[in-house]
């Protein structure tokens, strides 16, 4: 029997028809929508006189446009936000799609609530008109982001035409140093192999530094696969995956659960299976990593200095570095430590789950955010928020000087409403440091939630282990 990768298994088991030229008609098991891009798919579908084929497999949430200030309503700080919210509510109701609306206990960021509710399961295909859908590949599933038009197709026909990507194995081997997280692993990887390093590939993460990771941290790895340019990210199924899913509201129950579990045992790459490309990273060499530029690839360890554009042999990278350093107002050959910050943000589908918040709370406990720093925490889902509150984490955040918000995407991106100020420097647990991502000319440094918390306390960029000296 030929040895297969996890990707091959997922691909083959969903191929309805091979259309030639590397394109297949793939069966789609779950579709997730949100009010920002899903609304437009539902309206597009209606305009074309089509219906949702199977509403029971479609889910929708309000996360991108809704406000995250306590006491929020349908009115948003983003101008015109109400239209998105109302249209989404109307369209989902009409089509009979489950909506996790404002005030629903299951509401939250799509990629946080899908696993939380047991909507994504090992061995499923799931699509969503959102690029970070790859997060859910952490469950041994094929989950990827699509456009709004493709979403219409999946909604109407249960299938998508997909060109088969190549496969890449990224192995993190060895032991991580204390305080180094999944976020650091990804920033390290992308800075070494560039933001386009995995274009055209489905990436599987594996290795002795990946298996000990919690499901939450595995989601952080897969979340950043798209920042590496990948079609998607994924991780083979193990006991942790199964334990995470068991008992979740939409997970199979009873006999079906037993059958599912049996079925999932095979959802791993066979030993010796061939990948088109393989990268091995020495995990013990990774340290706290933070971005200095406007692409996730422009990141360094806090032990390194910001590179001089001249140090890039590649002319394009040199120009990109010059542009980024100008935009970010950072100087070559200086330390990130020297940069004072205006704001700190903990949230987003990358790092806003309960374990993230718990780890941050250890750092914040008994400490205060530096003067002049605006610090905000936005739990990834209403459930995360409630669980954190049950443990008293909200008190720790608030006492330290953090704002404690309702769940949603919030200031992970600037939609025209709330934002960090003009040219403010923000340290952020999000995934994108693009120009203008968090506000006009905002200078975003992406980092792990621990690094964000430590920097908020210090008032300048630093790792949690540096706090002893503050």
């Amino acid at each position, binding site marked *: 029997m030929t040895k297969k990768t996890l990707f091959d298994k997922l691909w083959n088991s969903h191929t*309805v*028809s091979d*259309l*030639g030229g590397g394109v297949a*008609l793939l069966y789609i*098991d779950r579709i997730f929508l949100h009010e920002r*891009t899903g*609304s*437009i798919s539902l309206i*597009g579908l209606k305009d*074309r006189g089509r219906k949702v084929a199977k*509403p*029971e497999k479609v889910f929708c949430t309000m996360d991108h446009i809704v406000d995250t200030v306590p006491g929020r309503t349908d009115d948003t700080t983003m*101008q*015109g936000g109400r239209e*998105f919210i109302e249209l989404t509510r109307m369209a989902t109701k009409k089509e009979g799609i*489950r909506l996790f609306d404002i005030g629903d206990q299951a509401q939250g960021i799509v990629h946080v609530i899908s696993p939380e509710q047991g909507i994504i*399961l090992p*061995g*499923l295909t799931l699509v969503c*008109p*959102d690029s970070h859908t790859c997060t859910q590949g952490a469950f041994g599933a094929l989950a990827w*982001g*699509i*456009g*709004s*038009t*493709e979403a219409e197709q999946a909604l*109407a*026909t*249960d*299938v998508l*035409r997909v*060109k088969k990507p190549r496969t890449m194995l990224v192995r993190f081997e060895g032991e991580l140093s204390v305080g180094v997280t999944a976020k650091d692993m990804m920033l390290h990887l992308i800075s070494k192999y560039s*933001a*386009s390093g995995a274009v*055209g590939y489905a990436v599987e993460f594996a290795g002795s530094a990946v298996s000990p990771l919690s499901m939450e941290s595995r989601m952080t790895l897969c979340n950043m696969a*798209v920042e590496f*340019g*990948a079609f998607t990210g994924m991780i083979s199924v193990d006991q942790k995956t199964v334990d995470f899913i068991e008992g979740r509201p939409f997970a*199979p129950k009873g006999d079906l659960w037993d*059958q*599912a579990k049996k*079925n999932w045992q095979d959802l791993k790459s066979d030993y010796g299976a061939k990948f088109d490309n393989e990268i091995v990273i020495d995990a013990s060499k990774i340290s706290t990593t933070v971005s200095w530029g406007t*692409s996730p690839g422009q990141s360094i360890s806090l032990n390194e200095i910001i590179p001089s554009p001249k140090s890039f042999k590649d002319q*394009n*990278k040199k*120009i*990109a570095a010059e*542009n980024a350093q100008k935009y970010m107002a950072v100087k070559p050959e200086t330390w990130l430590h020297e940069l004072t910050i205006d704001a700190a943000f903990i949230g987003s589908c990358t790092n806003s789950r309960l374990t993230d918040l718990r780890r941050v709370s250890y750092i914040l406990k008994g400490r205060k955010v530096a003067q002049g720093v605006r610090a905000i925490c936005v739990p990834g889902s209403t459930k995360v928020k409630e669980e954190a509150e049950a443990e008293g984490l909200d008190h720790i955040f608030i006492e330290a000087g953090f704002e404690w918000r309702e769940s949603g995407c919030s200031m992970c*991106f*600037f*939609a*025209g409403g709330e934002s960090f100020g003009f040219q403010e420097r923000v340290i952020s647990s999000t995934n*994108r440091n*693009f*120009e*203008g*991502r968090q506000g006009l*000319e905002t200078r975003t440094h992406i980092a792990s939630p621990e690094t964000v918390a430590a920097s908020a306390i210090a008032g300048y960029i630093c790792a949690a282990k540096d706090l002893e000296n503050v």
Partner: protein
Amino acid sequence: MEGFKKIISKAIPLLRINVNTDAIIPSREMKQVSKQGLSRGLFAGWRYKLNQRREPNPDFILNDTAYKDAQILLSGDNFGCGSSREHAVWALHEYGIRVIIAPSFGDIFYKNCIRNGILPILLSEQDISQLSDNEHKITLDNQMINDEISFEIAPADKKMLVDGLDDIELNLKHTSDIRLWENNDRMKRPWAYLSKLK
């Protein structure tokens, strides 16, 4: 969607790497649930001065009158990376762009192009740097630039562009295959199917 026709035009050299979809159409420019009216927000962060009055920034290549009405865009590695927003493609299309030439593209962006009448051409950086500043002729039937340089495109993608076809129609031709597959699969993976809503 109208089928893709031959394009003869100058090419706007936006030669940067990693041009992401947030840069192509910033979120703050997507104010309505609509595919229309997005071209004004195209590259807003670069195209306009920061004073909020939408004064053109003379340093940005799109504002160079030499490229007025150009339908071809040249760029660097990983064009259209980042967010899946199809608005990026709708904005480019409404602005008049029909062909984008780059050494690589963001995956989702590439597919969005195909479905919206924009031809994404993969060309090496070296070949791109050698394209002159004159007009270029792009023909999809024989996959050629100026009858000189050939480019690759998946047959299915080409067909979709040439015919301006709708994926839903195409997929529905397979309805009986899909239902057959599904019935089979339900026996193998009954746990994967959610029960119908009441």
